[in-house]
Every structure is written in structure tokens, then in C-alpha cells.
């Protein structure tokens, strides 16, 4: 029986989701069996595809929904929400 979890997150780091944060999102999502999507205002990205994540073009302040489905959906959504909250561990402009 698959679980389904939704979390609202905001892009807080100044540079938005450029390549390095995209890489961090894909690496994190890939640790889990759950399917994870990031839903933006005008499109949905597969959290395990770096190109797909980059097509969100999410700047600082963008709000996204993490949608995870699968046995470990909750853990996957939590891990990603934590990554967003930490600003992808970026300090200022990098």
C-alpha cells in the first residue's frame, strides 16, 4: 500500500535552484524508493532528473509542492523539505 505525501516548500537561497541545488535535490531524491515530483506554478519536475528539476527555473521566493508516493514517501519528502529549508547549504552568492 503506497503512501502519498505532500509538503509545501520555499526556495530560500539567493541564487534559486541552479545546477548545484538541482544536483543536491536529485541526489537526495534518489536515496529513496518513492517517486517524487516538484510542482511549481506552471510545471511539474521529476525530482530524480536533473534536467527536469532545472526546467523549474525556480528563483528565490518560489513556492513549490513536494509530492512523494511510495513506501518511504514521508522520509523522502522530509529529506527534501529539509534541504530546501537549509537553502541547499549555500551561503550567499556562490
Amino acid at each position, binding site marked *: 500500500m503506497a503512501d502519498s505525501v505532500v509538503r509545501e516548500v520555499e526556495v530560500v537561497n*539567493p*541564487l*534559486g*535552484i*541552479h*545546477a*548545484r541545488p538541482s*544536483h*543536491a535535490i*536529485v*541526489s537526495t531524491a*534518489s536515496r529513496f524508493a518513492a517517486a517524487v515530483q516538484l510542482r511549481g506554478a506552471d510545471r511539474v519536475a521529476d525530482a530524480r*532528473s*536533473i*534536467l*527536469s528539476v*532545472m*526546467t*523549474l*527555473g*525556480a*528563483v528565490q521566493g518560489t513556492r513549490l509542492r513536494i509530492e512523494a508516493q511510495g513506501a518511504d514517501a514521508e522520509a523522502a519528502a522530509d529529506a527534501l523539505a529539509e534541504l530546501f529549508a537549509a537553502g541547499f547549504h549555500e551561503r550567499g*552568492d556562490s
Partner: protein
Amino acid sequence: MSYTDLLKKKAILLDVDAGDGDRILEVLADGLCNLDPELVPRRGELLDALRERETLGSTAAHMVAIPHVKLPGVKKVSIVVAVHQAGVDFRALDGELVHVFFSVVRPEESADEHLAILRWIADIAQHQDFVPFARQATEPSHIIDLLAEFSPA
């Protein structure tokens, strides 16, 4: 949004046959210097920045890589597109060899434009026909036409 206007024919490098990922970065740095004369005296700095960028995490997926850097003092965005027929191991997350490289150098104060450019490239690269068609190109204009065709409206 399309950035094909940024692309000149001399920005398209066909038949690149660099043997490995580091040699490719040298070819890309040369290509960028060829587009912006201001980069010529800074080739070493540019190459170091490109190498440094790739150590932060691979920019490759779907047979496409996007080695990109910002350089303080650079006045404009330059983009080089290089096609490698045999493919190069560029440590892609999906393990695939990379056949098309988009290399971008940009001014320091351009974070939002940078995201828009990455989005433009990622949109194009996700088309499953993009890499096969790019590999068939025999003229730089073919690549420019292909990018225009695959750019989101």
C-alpha cells in the same frame, strides 16, 4: 524564452574529439575565448573555474552537460555548444556518455538570467530527439536551427 540570438556560428563546435572530460573543458574554454576577446587573457582563470565547477557536482544528464561559470568583470553572457560524436565520460548522474556540451560564462550579477538560461538548455536537452539530431549536424547553422526549433515558445 530563447537564447538562440546569443549563439553565433562560431559558437558551434562540431566534430570535437577531445579524449576526456578535462580536455573537453580546454576546448570549451578556447571556444568561449573565441567569442569574447576579453576572455583571452583570462583563459587560465576561466579553465580553472570550469574545472572547479565540475568538482561541485556533475552538470551532465541525458547525454548533455552544461559546464558553466561566472567570472567577475565579464560584461556579457557567452555560450558555446560543442558536439562530440563518440561521447565523453563526464560523470553524469545517469552514467551516460555526453555528446553535447553547452558551456556558459556569465557576469557575476546575473543570477536570475542564469536560471533562465539553464532552464532553456534543460528544456531543449530533455527532448529525446535533440542529441540524435545534434549529432547529425554537418554545419553550425544546423545546430542553431535545431535549438530554435526545440526552444519553448
